[in-house]
């Protein structure tokens, strides 16, 4: 018989989380105050960054979460305490911004600092660990993602964070933010779609023809080793030449700098994972299954669409997942050659040493990558569906 598990016991990850929470509360600044957006910052501890009652409440809740993380076993309880922690922490950052900003001062900036980041990291870690221990199915994970995204949207729409520096940066650039967002998504998803349209048939052909496979894999592997900046640079010259000599291309927006070379570079990077995973996916279809399909008189097309592709799908989707997460990150670099996207804010911010502007570009990118990987992981699981793992 399995001995009954105690409801409370010592948890190692929980211990690390508790230590982080302790440091965040007592030894690290919660927020940074700056007189202007590029002035140097002044650190504010939790007790300085919030009205006393709020600071005390946040500290109590955080200590409670720490205790729960160390002692509680039940994943649902751990998830619950992490959620309560986040529910108190996230709005209090907004309150802190309002509290620290002098009335009628439009130049002062308040941004989250190490303590806040540590607290949100600890709570998220606890939540993610609890979710992992609950072994949610694909739909459960999608639902958790939807809840998280809705909560974030609610916080942003409620206005509670409006006094934060990053949202002030957003406020002055709302138009360009959404333009760059669209551009970012267009680059990442567009190049992925192009890579699929081109790469999956290429993968199928490479699977059939051994000679083609070697040539394709080798050239794509070489592309993959070129650093992204260099690849963007390399593509500027030929595309510039195309634009100069073919008026139609220029009219379509193909130029040496801008979105075209960025799109093309992302496309090239995306090809290897797509082609390689298509080939690998088709290779792992059991030979007996293909032989039986042929023996029953399925035509090459019926076999490919009805048997081989469905069985290769989980591996191909895993390739698409790699590419999408990679593209969402790499698209940031596109801004360097005038391709736009969230990278525009990152590089502008670096140029102006305005860290908030950097975050305005970086945080949405991180959030998108995280969301994309959760969604595609779920799709990979769903596509495995009925076949044994």
């Amino acid at each position, binding site marked *: 018989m399995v001995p009954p598990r105690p409801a409370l016991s010592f948890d190692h990850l929980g211990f690390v989380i508790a230590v982080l929470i302790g440091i965040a509360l007592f030894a690290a600044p919660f927020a940074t105050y700056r007189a202007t957006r590029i002035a140097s910052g002044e650190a504010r501890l939790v007790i300085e960054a919030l009205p006393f009652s709020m600071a005390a409440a946040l500290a109590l809740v955080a200590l409670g979460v720490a205790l729960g993380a160390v002692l509680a076993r039940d994943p649902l309880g751990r998830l619950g305490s992490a959620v309560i922690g986040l529910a108190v922490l996230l709005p209090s950052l907004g309150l802190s911004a309002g509290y620290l900003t002098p009335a009628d001062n439009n130049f002062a900036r308040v941004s989250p600092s190490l303590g806040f980041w540590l607290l949100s990291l600890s709570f998220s870690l606890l939540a993610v660990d609890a979710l992992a221990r609950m072994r949610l199915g694909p739909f459960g994970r999608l639902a958790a993602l939807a809840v998280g995204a809705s909560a974030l949207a609610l916080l942003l729409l409620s206005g509670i964070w409006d006094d934060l520096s990053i949202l002030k940066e957003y406020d002055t650039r709302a138009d360009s933010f959404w333009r760059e967002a669209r551009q970012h998504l267009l680059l990442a998803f567009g190049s992925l779609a192009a890579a699929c349209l081109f790469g999956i048939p290429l993968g199928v052909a490479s699977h059939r023809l051994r000679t083609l496979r070697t040539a394709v894999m080798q050239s794509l592997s070489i592309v993959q080793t070129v650093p992204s900046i260099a690849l963007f640079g390399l593509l500027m010259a030929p595309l510039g030449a195309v634009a100069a000599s073919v008026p139609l291309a220029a009219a379509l927006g193909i130029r040496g700098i801008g979105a075209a070379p960025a799109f093309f570079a992302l496309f090239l990077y995306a090809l290897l994972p797509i082609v390689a995973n298509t080939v690998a996916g088709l290779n792992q279809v*059991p030979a*007996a*299954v*293909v*032989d*039986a*399909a*042929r*023996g*029953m*008189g*399925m*035509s090459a097309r*019926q076999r490919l669409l009805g*048997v081989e592709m*469905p*069985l290769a799908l989980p591996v191909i989707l895993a390739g698409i997942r790699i590419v999408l997460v990679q593209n969402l990150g790499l698209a940031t670099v596109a801004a360097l050659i005038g391709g736009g996207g969230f990278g525009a804010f990152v590089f502008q911010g670096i140029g102006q040493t305005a860290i908030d502007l950097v975050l305005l570009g970086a945080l949405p990118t991180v959030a998108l990558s995280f969301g994309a990987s959760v969604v595609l992981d779920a799709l990979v699981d769903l596509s495995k*569906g*009925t*076949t*044994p793992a």
Partner: protein
Amino acid sequence: MIEIDRLTKRYGATLVVEDVSFNVEEGTLTVVVGTSGAGKSTLLRMINRLVEPSAGRVLIDGEDTRTIPEDELRHRIGYVIQGYGLFPHRNVADNIATVPRLLRWDRKRIAQRVEELLDLFQLDPAEFAHKFPHELSGGQQQRVGVARALAARPALLLMDEPFGALDAVIRSKAQDDLIAIQRRLGATIVLVTHDMNEAFHLGDRIAVMDQARLLQYATPAELLMRPADDFVERLVGTVERPFRLLSLTPVREALEAGHAEGEPIAASESLHDALSRLLWTGRKALPVADSSGAIIGRVSVDKILQHGRPLP
């Protein structure tokens, strides 16, 4: 009738199947037996043109298979392989429906046929139709594989080591089931195996292959009594020979008048089984019953032993 006419397959300079000819009568089960690498699978795969012959031809009811489009030919020939190759992403019903769907049968007819086959193979449709292959035992997968091959009522069923993945107990049950289904449907079957016991157990006729060539094509009894050469004789197994012969002979062949004590044995059982019972019980004779259970005589050890050697 299936006529295999001087079939030859060459890969480069190596002959894999060399000038093989034999005929398979309608409604019989022919076993192609031989050691691994003898060319059995290649021979079988030339019948449904998964392998194109280098020379020779195959006639099905007089029709040259080369005149039939490949896929169409294969719709008419069932094919079962070792490991079965069930589609892991389709459930049992969909697996079985594969060829009828390719032939565009209407849905109702397909559903009826699937249910009929599941019943025939003792798989409860309510329980099994919606299961996926990985949820089935080896024996159940095997039955689904054969059901799938029979779905469109093929003129011929090709089976390549169909019991190779089963353990001994389930295998002998699966072999008995195959014989029963073959008799019931009157199916024409060509089955490949490397297992001589299986060949003797299943085959109406046996084709012995070695090193690309057909050494002998004969009934099991002929193979035992008049092996074509030393190789066949050795393959048949000199030590096993008398027992194989007894396995092939029904009790009624050794029936004699008279009385015996003990539980009766059916006249349709083999002399091998009768001898086994006699040895175990220490008796000299057993009563013999006909299919209705009436005692029709007896079978004795002495008489059985006479059947365990070739007739003079």
